[in-house]
């Protein structure tokens, strides 16, 4: 997710954000990797399909493993919306 997020950033996630709504294109989300549910990933929503599945892409497209490899994922794998980067303090701010 470089340059929006860097390795070892601390982030805050709103885990209630998608209780009653679908993710929107452009939002950065925390999700379970569909290939291995013990791995948690951060990606940006690039498309929401009529069947409710969600396409995720990394911002650093040359290096990212995302829906181009594992396809769109069900909403049930979305854990929340990434809202704030709070560490390091020099990078404090909303994640957009």
């Amino acid at each position, binding site marked *: *997710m*470089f340059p929006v*997020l860097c*390795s070892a950033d*601390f*982030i805050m996630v709103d885990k209630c954000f998608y209780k009653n709504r679908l993710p929107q294109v452009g939002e950065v989300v*925390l999700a379970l*990797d569909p*290939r291995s549910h013990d*791995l*948690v*990933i*951060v*990606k940006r929503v690039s498309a929401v399909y009529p069947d409710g599945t969600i396409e995720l892409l*990394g911002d*650093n*497209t*040359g*290096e*990212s*493993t995302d829906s*181009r*490899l594992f396809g769109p994922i069900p909403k049930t794998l979305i854990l929340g919306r990434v809202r704030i980067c*709070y*560490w390091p303090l020099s990078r404090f701010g909303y994640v957009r």
Partner: protein
Amino acid sequence: MNFIKGLLRPSQVASAHCDGPCGVYDPASARIAAEAVLSMAKKLVALEGNDLATENTRSRYIAIKEEQAQVAKTELLILWTDYFKPPHLEANPEIHNIFWNAAKLCSQNKVEVSVDAAQALVDTCEQVHNIFWASKSRDDVSFYTAG
């Protein structure tokens, strides 16, 4: 500052880039395995005799050839399916063909004892080396063989 950072440390870790958090890929792993296959093929062709000691040596060579061909295939498939992305394919449309041929050569080297096929596998690893480092805009990593 470290104390504050410790207090603020999240309870959960997320990966933002690749399959695992490491992001380390290098075609050298496949090249080393391919070289081992070539070495075993050469030794098998040169090995003479049918006594027990020679048969034992021959079976060890065959087992290593088989094992390393599979290692090479696994390493190549990781690069093909995990590292290379659609933008790389746009830049180099030959990527699929190169990996397809490389995987087939791994299989051929398991089935046969052929110095030519093993050398072809090493040569294909050099092709992979070249497209991999070109994709990273690196021209300072030369291909070399250990053997």
